[in-house]
């Protein structure tokens, strides 16, 4: 393995591992002598010293690690403060409405109503801080119960859950009858 190839392999390993990796571990993975690995690390350091590099190598006792170069911090701060544009998609809104009205509610119940796996949607809502775990249901498997947060109330401008518009019982009955009627029509071929 020449210097360049060795440097490439070390770069790939350090990139994937994230944490620091001991020199002897690198040597073992590459099937090289430790002194050769050290030489390849020197090559890497030189490569990272160029203006076109955003990353650098951090040398610890008998180990090395990749890190971003100090000069790049201002861009990292910029990217951190320009977050992805978050919006509530249809899937998220549906899930949120179920949790708001049926809380405390399990993910399974949400999925039963929506008819589709809702892991992702529930997780996103938790990430956004609109939904939180309320505890576990006293049932087989002890599933998690979810409910809305204070942030939910604040964001939607309500003081308490009682302010949620109530479901019209008449309307629910209407839906039921419509569904039955439609089924009758279909069979009346």
């Amino acid at each position, binding site marked *: 393995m020449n210097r360049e190839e060795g440097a490439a392999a070390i770069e790939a390993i350090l990139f994937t591992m994230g944490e620091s990796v001991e020199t002897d571990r690198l040597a073992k993975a590459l099937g090289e002598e430790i002194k050769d690995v050290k030489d390849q690390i020197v090559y890497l350091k030189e490569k990272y010293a160029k203006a076109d590099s955003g990353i650098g190598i951090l040398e610890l006792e008998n180990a090395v690690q990749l890190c*971003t170069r100090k000069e790049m*911090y201002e861009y990292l701060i910029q990217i*951190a403060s320009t977050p992805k544009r978050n919006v509530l998609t249809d899937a998220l809104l549906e899930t949120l409405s179920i949790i708001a009205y049926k809380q405390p509610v399990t993910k399974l119940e949400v999925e039963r109503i929506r008819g589709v796996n809702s892991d992702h949607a529930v997780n996103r809502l938790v990430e956004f801080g609109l939904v939180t775990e309320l505890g576990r249901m006293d049932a087989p498997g002890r599933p998690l119960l979810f409910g809305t947060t204070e942030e939910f109330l*604040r964001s*939607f*401008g309500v003081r308490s859950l009682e302010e*949620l518009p109530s479901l019209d019982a008449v309307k629910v009955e209407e839906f039921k009858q419509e569904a*039955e009627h439609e089924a009758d029509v279909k069979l009346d071929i």
Partner: protein
Amino acid sequence: MALEVKLQVFEGPLDLLLHLIDKNKVDIYDIPIVTITQQYMDYIRQMQHDDMDVTSEFLVMAATLIDIKCRMLLPKEVNEDGEEEDPRAELVEKLLEYKMYKYMSYELRDRQVNADLYFYREKNIPEEIEGYEAPIDYGTLIGENNLSMLNGIFQGLLRRQEDRVDPVRSKFGKIEKEEVDMDLKTEYVRDYIKVHKRFSFRQLLEKQHSKSEIVVTFLVILEEMKLGEIEIEQQETFGDIVITSRRDVNE
């Protein structure tokens, strides 16, 4: 596990159809529907469980095949353009579409293997920067949505859920299994014969409370006749039947 078998081996009629065609490549011109059905039944048995989904889907496919076959035996239909319509066209179309996606799925599988060779990195924000993680802007997140919209969405969901419940099937009453004991009925009829000696069949039936009781009573009468316990007479077509006990004659 039956469910696992369904996952790994087959999931449905188009897949099954292609597989069975494939299996029969040798004498491709004389695969009767009977053979297909036979093989299908073997698969069902393999699954061991009565998976109604698979079964009913197969019936749909079989019915489609028979429908096409029937139409082919009839004089050809002519469409608006005056062309003869080939009843097979629809099936060919379906098979073709399915085949294409099946082929593509193999292409995809091959690509998946290559993608395994790449490694990624976990998000790792240096400590000094972590504090800058932008807070969620709830104004843009919530946007135009408000509580009454949430209410509307929920009502819509409830409505769709209502739609998913099959109102026809859910209206079906319970079908009670009615047990009419043949032995008990036989005893009853024999007692009746003993008491009445000569009686009207119609009158006997009127004493029965349900269709199945009538059926069983009729069966008992037939049985008694076979045993030579009774004699029957009928004067005219649709007239009443008179049953006479032969026990007195014998005794």
